């Protein structure tokens, strides 16, 4: 009897999740429907965002969301894996614990604090040192990637701050995965005459590959949805630009910025449609991630 009650109760709890998710999806999509209906698929390809004339398109925000997250992963992934390899393979115990704790602490800092730090420290640093370095020292100012005036708030600033924010997620997962690689795997490599470096590169990392990818995707999921810190440093400009130094916009920051003052129905609906788009992108990323992890796990030779 007790078993049965327990079973029904837990089943009920488990069912709450898909039901809740379904309700959120339905409400977001139905609220965004007037905009999607009016602009059609053009909503996702148009760069207009003109509340005065009620023309809306989400392309720059989608572009910004994907590009800022990509920059974040490009910066954070090698760093995070490096940190994890050091902590799990090289660091003595008295170093490992405090550093692991500090890396985990990065994940606990509220995003608005990252944003403030971004405005007060990161953005002036990028404007004063990093951007002039690329433009003047390396003479890359005329290439599309580094074109335009160096104002500070930019796609690069958003990507950099996101990199710091996702680093602890990737690093923590990678560390756990590396620590779980069986001792026999390492010993086998060493027994075959591998150096320590070869052991890590050829035996440990491939074994842990699926887990590391899982960690990276976990970071990506966080980067896609991050709102506050990005809003504070990205420059909030609704435009697609190839330049890393140009201001941009992300879907989440656009919704956060505009929702409270959006008065016309179409404007509100367009913001909900952007939300629906973000929802879809997140679902796609998660599906791809699970598929990758599954495939890697299956093909791997342990």
């Amino acid at each position, binding site marked *: 009897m007790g078993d049965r009650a327990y079973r029904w109760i837990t089943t009920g709890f488990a069912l709450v999740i898909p039901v809740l998710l379904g309700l959120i999806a339905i409400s977001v999509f139905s609220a965004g429907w007037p905009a999607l209906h009016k602009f059609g698929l053009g909503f996702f390809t148009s760069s207009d965002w003109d*509340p005065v004339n009620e023309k809306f398109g989400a392309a720059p925000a989608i572009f910004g969301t994907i590009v800022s997250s990509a920059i974040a992963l490009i910066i954070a992934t090698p760093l995070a894996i490096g940190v994890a390899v050091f902590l799990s393979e090289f660091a003595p115990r008295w170093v490992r614990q405090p550093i692991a704790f500090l890396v985990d602490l990065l994940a606990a800092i509220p995003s608005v604090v990252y944003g403030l730090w971004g405005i007060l420290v990161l953005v002036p640093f990028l*404007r004063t040192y990093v951007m002039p370095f690329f433009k003047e020292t390396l003479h890359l100012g005329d290439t599309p990637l580094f074109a335009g005036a160096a104002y500070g708030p930019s796609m690069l600033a958003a990507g950099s701050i996101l990199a710091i924010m996702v680093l602890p997620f990737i690093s923590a*997962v990678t560390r756990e995965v590396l620590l779980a690689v069986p001792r026999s795997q390492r010993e086998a490599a060493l027994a075959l005459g591998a150096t320590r470096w070869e052991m890590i590169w050829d035996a440990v990392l491939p074994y842990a590959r699926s887990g590391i990818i899982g960690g990276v995707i976990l970071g990506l999921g966080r980067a896609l949805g991050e*709102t506050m810190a990005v809003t504070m440093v990205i420059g*909030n*400009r609704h435009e697609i630009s190839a330049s890393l130094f140009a201001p941009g916009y992300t879907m989440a920051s656009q*919704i956060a910025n505009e929702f*409270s003052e*959006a008065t016309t129905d179409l404007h509100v609906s367009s913001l909900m449609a952007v939300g629906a788009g973000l929802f879809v992108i997140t679902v796609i990323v998660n599906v791809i991630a699970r598929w990758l992890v599954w495939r890697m796990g299956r093909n791997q030779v342990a």
Partner: protein
Amino acid sequence: MTRWPILAAVLATWACSSDSSKKGSADTSHAAAATSTTSGADLTGAGATFPKPIYDKWFHDYAAKTGVKINYQANGSGAGIRQLSDETVDFGASDAPMSDSEMAKAKGGPIMHIPTVIGVVAISYNLPGVRQPLKLTGGLIADIFLGKITKWNDQRIAAVNQGVTLPASDILVVHRSEGSGTTYIFSDYLSAVSPAWKSGPGKGKELQWPVGLGGQGNPGVAGQVKQTPGAIGYVELAYVKQNNLSAALLQNAAGQFVAPSAASATAAAEAAKLPPNTDYRVSIVNAPGAAAYPIASFTYLLVYKNQPDATKAKKLTDFIRWALADGEKDASALDYAPLPGVLVSRLMTRLDSIAPGPAR
């Protein structure tokens, strides 16, 4: 098989992360802070953030004097209009007047606009080495924000600033990233002085900006201007003083260059010469008069003309009368411009027409 526990761990952490990504969305903690004394409030209101400092002072002083508690949520003009239209608050507040279509959607019938104070929008800039206040005309500001003038030493800027050495640097335009009453006032002004602006970006709380980057709120724009040499942006007057920014002298309709100040904005409201039957949904930008500052606007309390609850109606009109008679004195100290005396006496008469009883 040892790898499956690893994957499970990864996926579990991953599932947990999805809620952390949602924190930090548009939050209105300042609004929440304002509602700390909700219990026992006699009147509730919601709306514009711009007049919040003076409204807070008024509500505080009025409660101390009469015991009537008023709870105000500064959640934005748009939210204030929505909440008043849905009759979830007793009054709303907005920097921009409601449009006819917004008025038509209000569930409680006709809405009256009561101007309380005048907001002053300053054009602030960051030009190290330029000592004298910069002079700008409406046409220049429009062309800078349209991206037609891109360098500080442009001949047209130099022409109105004889004797000032302007740097050859790029102009960085900073605007508001979110919908805002300040943007409405500023774009209202640009539409009044520039046909190209009127037919281009136009007038609204949020625009499609031809150039520039967006800062969040007045503090965001002021901070960006303060940080970046070559920047120009529009902010409420109070933020110019708080951040020690430079503010441009603007050429008004009479051809005079005027500094932004409470006095010059009140002069603009006086010079606008509103007709006696006005509903106050009017613009006072680019007002005539030699002393008038051109970018000024009323900020409004929004109240239903027909009040279903007679007790609340009395409390509300009593408060507004007190604010107009006694509260206006506090305006200048908080960098708002007080209403001209002639408008105050006209508004007092107008308050008589607020009547108890449902409209429907």
